[in-house]
């Protein structure tokens, strides 16, 4: 009661987001010190920025009149290659990640298999797509094969991890019921596990196709095929209207994929 009566008459103050005062002040002081240190090391050439603003304006204006025609064959070839890479790598990546996801789920796989599959996932997730692409281009030569392998490899880490988490959190009762009917291991997976994780698998796969398409747009920068090479050339030649056209196509395809994935996910769930 005394606490309440002590508070009467005093104006209310919003409680702070971080309760402990020493931690709050430490974070604030540390953050400000970091910001000062960071800003003091960044060199900005303001005259160069000012000179470039005109070019920036030109680029933004290019979006109002993108040039789809004058480089249409290059754009078309690059886009087809990007889409081909996306489809092929998604199919292969998903096909490989399903067994790895089964192996990385503790309630399905024994410990040694679990550890192997988890380390495959960890390696695939830790390595950046573009770095993998550089190495694979060095090994396999220029062209879409390196991009295809890169995207397949990246798909494994993403899909197998999320799918394994879903398998681990599945309803045990259904799987046990199938086992009690005398099912073999493959039948158990097929009738006890697979129906439970199927909606999630479809949702994740479509999401990954979307990501793979976006990534395929940059793999061309390091020579791994796709629209990126065309885009890079357009930037280098200051052909902003062509670059704007390519970016608009990418945005439209990503939007379409996102819409499609929303529709399909709503249907399977």
């Amino acid at each position, binding site marked *: 009661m005394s606490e309440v009566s002590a508070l009467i008459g005093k104006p209310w103050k919003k409680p702070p987001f971080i309760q402990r005062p020493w931690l709050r002040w430490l974070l604030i002081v540390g953050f400000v010190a970091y910001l000062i240190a*960071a800003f003091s090391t960044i060199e900005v050439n303001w005259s160069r920025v000012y000179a470039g603003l005109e070019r920036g304006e030109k680029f933004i204006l290019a979006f109002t009149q993108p040039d789809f025609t004058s480089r249409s064959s290059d754009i078309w070839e690059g886009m087809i290659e990007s889409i081909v890479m996306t489809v092929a790598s998604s199919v292969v990546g998903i096909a490989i990640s399903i067994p790895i996801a089964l192996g990385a789920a503790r309630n399905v796989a024994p410990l040694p298999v679990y550890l192997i599959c988890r380390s495959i996932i960890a390696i695939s997730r830790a390595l950046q797509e*573009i770095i993998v692409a550089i190495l694979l281009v060095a090994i396999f030569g220029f062209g879409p094969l390196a991009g295809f392998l890169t995207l397949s490899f990246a798909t494994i880490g993403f899909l197998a991890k999320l799918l394994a988490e879903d398998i681990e959190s599945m309803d045990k009762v259904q799987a046990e019921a199938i086992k009690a009917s005398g099912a073999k291991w493959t039948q158990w997976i097929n009738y006890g596990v697979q129906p439970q994780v199927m909606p999630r698998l479809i949702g994740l796969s479509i999401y990954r196709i979307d990501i793979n398409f976006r990534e395929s747009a940059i793999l061309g920068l390091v020579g791994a095929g796709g629209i990126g090479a065309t885009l890079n050339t357009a930037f280098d030649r200051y052909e902003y209207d062509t670059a704007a056209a390519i970016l608009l196509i990418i945005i439209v395809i*990503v939007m379409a994929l996102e819409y499609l994935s929303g529709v399909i996910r709503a249907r399977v769930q």
Partner: protein
Amino acid sequence: MPVQDLKGQKIWQRRTGRESLGHWVIWLIGVAIFAYCWQQISASTTWFFVWDAPRIANDIWTRATPPRWEYIAQLGKPIWDTLNIATLGTIFSLILAVPVAFMAARNTTPSRFIIRPIALLIIVSTRSINSLIWALLLIAIIGPGVFAGVIAIAIRSIGFCAKLLYEAIEEIDETQVEAITATGASRWQVMAYGIVPQIMPAFAGIAVFRWDINIRESTVLGLVGAGGIGLQLSSSLNVLAWPQVTLILLVILAAVVISEWVSAKVRGAII
């Protein structure tokens, strides 16, 4: 229930005849598309290089090991730059993403038919273009360097942060907002006392999550000239200094693992 009659014995089946036919057609189309795609890839591949690949990989491996450890003395500044690109980029993007998120959320948008679609368009277009492409573009406009990297990361992150944030705003408890409104609070007071405290944990979580992703992305921005450790990576690759490349890759790997650990810890503490 689909049941097949086999010599007077009823056998359970998973699908009816028509359903399984439909499945077969879908699979057939899928396989045909995949075969076509594979053919396209195969046609533009020099297969001689592929058969030669194990030898090349082995060759690169022998050149790349052991890593040139003494080179790490030159990596301090690039790593600091990379950290700055990721952190400052995240801060700028959050500053830009908050108003976009409030404009995109159904319950806080000032106008549902004009401003909300514009905000959603900003979210989609910034999200669908990779930070490397933003960096390429900004280098052409404002010149190479760390600053271009910061802006590229900032623009790229707007969509991600704003999308997650507006979903959090749409899920808030309306009764709290109503209670604040009932006290006679102005529009801004409702926002500050009714909405902001509810989305603060989500906001902090999104910030740290995106910072973690940005550390990953900023390590490679240097490949196109936007500063950070990627610059060292691309110059080492250009002079075929493979032992240096190995060391840089190890440093990048360590940075990614540390940032993921930090972000997991902080998010665990918030939620």
